[in-house]
């Protein structure tokens, strides 16, 4: 798969994607997937903010990850309850945490108060240009190897990968009654997870 230039540049630096700005989502209306869960292995999957998100089998950009780890304010492990109603039901949703391990991306954290591990990576209203974190699905690699500025970074863009923000220059395309974002040759399907928007890499619709 050949990636358009803007996507390449954007994806080549996934570790940079996570802004160190502590862009906390305030009032997310999303059920924290059990207060106990975030401390679990989840920490491993997203321990160092953008670096971890970009990681998995995809980007192994050690320097970038370390840099992010040093600058990230930290991950959100818990949030306040918007209602007692939530409190009563929260335990039913703990299984969502499996996503952390499936994707090496904070999919569920996207539903978890504004994106948890990667502040400033998106999830909020600034969906363009806020940066990008790529998480790759293990297996079925349909990716491209690219070089970033200082690090040799292999980025895999596989269908099913999830990002939290798009680069600039994508265009919205409607297909099958739904909206897709085309960024060069890479297609993303935006979707709400909780009240957060995430973008899943899909085949051309």
């Amino acid at each position: 798969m050949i990636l358009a230039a803007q996507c390449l540049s954007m994806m080549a630096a996934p570790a940079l994607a996570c802004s160190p700005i502590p862009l906390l989502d305030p009032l997310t209306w999303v059920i924290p997937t059990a207060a106990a869960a975030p401390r679990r292995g989840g920490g491993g999957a997203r321990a160092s903010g953008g670096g971890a998100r970009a990681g998995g089998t995809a980007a192994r950009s050690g320097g970038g990850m370390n840099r992010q780890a040093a600058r990230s304010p930290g991950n959100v492990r818990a949030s306040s309850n918007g209602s007692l109603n939530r409190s009563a039901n929260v335990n039913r949703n703990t299984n969502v945490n499996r996503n952390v391990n499936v994707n090496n991306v904070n999919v569920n954290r996207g539903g978890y108060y504004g994106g948890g591990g990667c502040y400033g990576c998106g999830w909020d209203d600034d969906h363009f240009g806020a940066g990008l974190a790529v998480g790759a699905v293990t297996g079925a690699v349909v990716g491209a190897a690219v070089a970033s500025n200082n690090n040799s970074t292999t980025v895999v863009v596989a269908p099913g990968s999830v990002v939290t923000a798009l680069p600039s220059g994508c265009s919205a395309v409607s297909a099958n009654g739904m909206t897709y974002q085309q960024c060069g040759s890479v297609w993303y399907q935006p979707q709400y997870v909780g009240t957060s928007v995430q973008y899943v890499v899909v085949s051309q619709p």
Partner: protein
Amino acid sequence: MRTIPYKACLALLAAAPMPVVAQAPAPAQQSPAVPPDIRQALERMADALKTINNLEIKADLTSEEVLDSGQKLQSSGVLTIAARRPDRLFMQVDSERRTRQFIYDGKQVTIFGPKTGYYATVPAPATTAGLMDELSDRYGIDTPLADLFVWGASGVKLDKIKSAVDAGPDRIAGEVCNHYAFRQDGADWQIWIRQTGQPLPCKIVIVNTDDPSNPQTQAIFNWSQPQTIADARFQFTPPANAHRIQLMSVADTANIGAKP
């Protein structure tokens, strides 16, 4: 003559602790954690909510997030609610970082981000109270102050409350409100209820006690009860720049990335 009754008295005293100890837990088990006067206050509030057909609420909302370090950060926003019993709702949380609307017409609910233009519409239960559960259970969305609708439909769930305190009157935004504090699994919560007029909530605080840093949500209410609210308020018409997307369920989300 005196010593005999005195000894008898001593004997009684000596014997007394046994039955007292044995009996003490019995009344505690029989009486609920919520004393009658507090229970009545909650019931009056729920009854008041049930009588309101059209309501509008503006609430200053703060919530907190806990970093892995345990540090808490607080965020602020404004919650706007317009609702018509039993099956119409417009709700918006507006903050500098994110704005989301929920529009519910009794048949379907739309979540809309005005700034990004993304919206998703899904079928919805027949009542607003049912919608709160659906959003919570199916979509993992923690609707702020969903309790107002649940209480307005089925009252306060007293059986979950493990302790209740009447903290007396307090003044919220110039209004005197009766302050009550409760503890239940996963949450300590407080409610301030108007002392005069309709016993509506003035303020609510919910502390998440599952996390050691105890992040809390706070809402201070401003109520109004219009005669009518136009149907259009509860219907979503996509603006020109709107883009329809999917709302993933909790189950969907668990499968993302599972496909090769």
